[in-house]
């Protein structure tokens, strides 16, 4: 599928390049903007980012694959990130992760058939004081219980 940045996003990327002595530094932000517009970082997004920043597609791909927050395949409408690192694990992170897997019938890196949810088991999200936690898209839900986590999913359709 062809991909082209919207005019507005072109301007956002341009503004980002101004922060640095080298345009290339805007690659992380540009990939985010591409992901925002396209839903995930496809080959076409990579190419568009590379063209815009005058780097090779391989350089842009290298960055996209190094960092875990770029979706290298389509994600669900609600992307769930459940932390199972130590502080969360000590307070039931795995129970929540397992309950969600069971309820949605998907596991790490998968998307539900209806495209509503995708699930990712993540490393520490910096919310250990509110463990266990999960993020639904950009919102953190802390001090979770299994029941609460499942209830949150009910509200997302």
């Amino acid at each position, binding site marked *: 599928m062809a991909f082209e940045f919207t005019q507005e996003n072109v301007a956002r990327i341009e503004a980002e390049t101004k922060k640095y002595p080298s345009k290339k530094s805007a690659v992380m932000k540009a990939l985010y903007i591409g992901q925002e517009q396209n839903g995930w970082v*496809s080959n076409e997004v990579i190419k568009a980012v590379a063209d815009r920043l005058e780097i090779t597609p391989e350089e842009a791909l290298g960055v996209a694959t190094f960092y875990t*927050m770029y979706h290298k395949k389509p994600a669900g409408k609600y992307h769930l990130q459940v932390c199972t*690192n130590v502080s969360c694990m000590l307070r039931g992170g795995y129970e929540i992760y397992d309950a969600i897997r069971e309820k949605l019938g998907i596991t790490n890196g998968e998307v539900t058939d209806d495209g509503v949810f995708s699930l990712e088991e993540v490393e*520490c999200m910096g919310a250990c004081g509110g463990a266990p936690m999960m993020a639904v898209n950009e919102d953190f839900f802390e001090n979770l219980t299994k029941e609460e986590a499942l209830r949150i999913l009910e509200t997302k359709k």
Partner: protein
Amino acid sequence: MEKLILPDIPDLDKLDVYKKHGGFEAAKKALRMSPDDIIEEVKKSGLRGRGGAAFSAGLKWSFMPKTTDRPKYLCINGDESEPGSFKDRQIFEFNPFQMIEGALIASYAIGARTCYIYIRGEYYKWIKLVQKALDAAYEDGLLGEKMKKTFGTDFAVEMYLHVGAGAYICGEESSLMSSIEGKRGYPRVKPPFPAQAGLWGDPTTINNVETVANVPHIINRGAEWYSKIGAEKHPGTILFGVSGHVKKPGVYELPSGTLLTEIIHEHAGGVLGDKKIKAVIPGGSSMPPLRGDQLEGVRMDADSLKEAGSGIGTGGIMVMDEDTDLLKVLWRITHFYHHESCGQCTPCREGCGWMEKIFLRMLDGRGVKGDLDLLVSVANNIEGNTICALGEAAAWPVKFMIARFRDEFEKYVGEEIKLEPADKVHSMRKTETPIAPFALK
């Protein structure tokens, strides 16, 4: 006790409130001092880095070349991805201007005209809060070209946000710089150190968020005053993040040198269910864990913790009660480092994987005699043989946990090697992350 970083002032994240409480007075004062005097003052204050290594902030600044035509940079490290650490987030949310003011003063002291604040990408909400604070500071003429007029100096610094994208390793200072340059976040071999060759090969200083947030107080009230707070050799207050099996997890700002037991039992409300403590990791997951019976008298400052056989790290205190399965904990920690290893050095990349496999085997009930020694040997071969300190971060928990809790692990190692048919060999859980399912045409 007075709180310096997270005082109980409502709406301190609003610029007018921050200014009403003395905000940017330190910047005014600092910009009338010479950079050398500021560095001297910060050195004298005894301020040490809060990002993990507890290195003297003033000394680090003094490494920056004074006579050079090259641009200089300051990076504020807000990657905060070490498991058990969640304190810089509080500064972003409740006192962002103090970080900005501290970064401004630090930039002036080292002669940096550009400062990047690196925040981990998962801090969606906090990224927005910091951007909002930066915008407000710009609008008020406290940053950028306009600050020359505001402060009546010819110094100006541009301050930008650089957002990460989910890589723990980018908290390591040289990896952080690779990331800002728009590359994969690979750490670099040191020397050269960042003060000689940092961002784009130019002199660069990297400081933690909390470190620079202390600076305005030092300028306002003097090194002498600051150096008297808390532990003599590691003065100031520290944001301790307490998590795990405690009744009141959270961030507590206390003088350095506070007793670990006081933090756990008084501030964090004691252990859940009033159980006994089996283990405490005092400074984020890379620091050696202490036994529950080793905690008495341990003070939370760099030197005391070193003496106690651990480290202050990020001040993230993880408490584990007597029913905790330490093998699971240690496997989970190792899984983390394996996942986050950037893969440049063989000992780290392979060693973390091997250690994780051995832990999974033990969790599967197929541990064999000699596994513990094998683990320690792998850990020893990682330590000191890698480009960056993630190697140590991965090796220490394994080495020290096995040394301090050997009895806990011995239950998992059988007497002799039991061979299972291959189809029965399964790992405890699937933990693979999706690999890019595409290649460039």
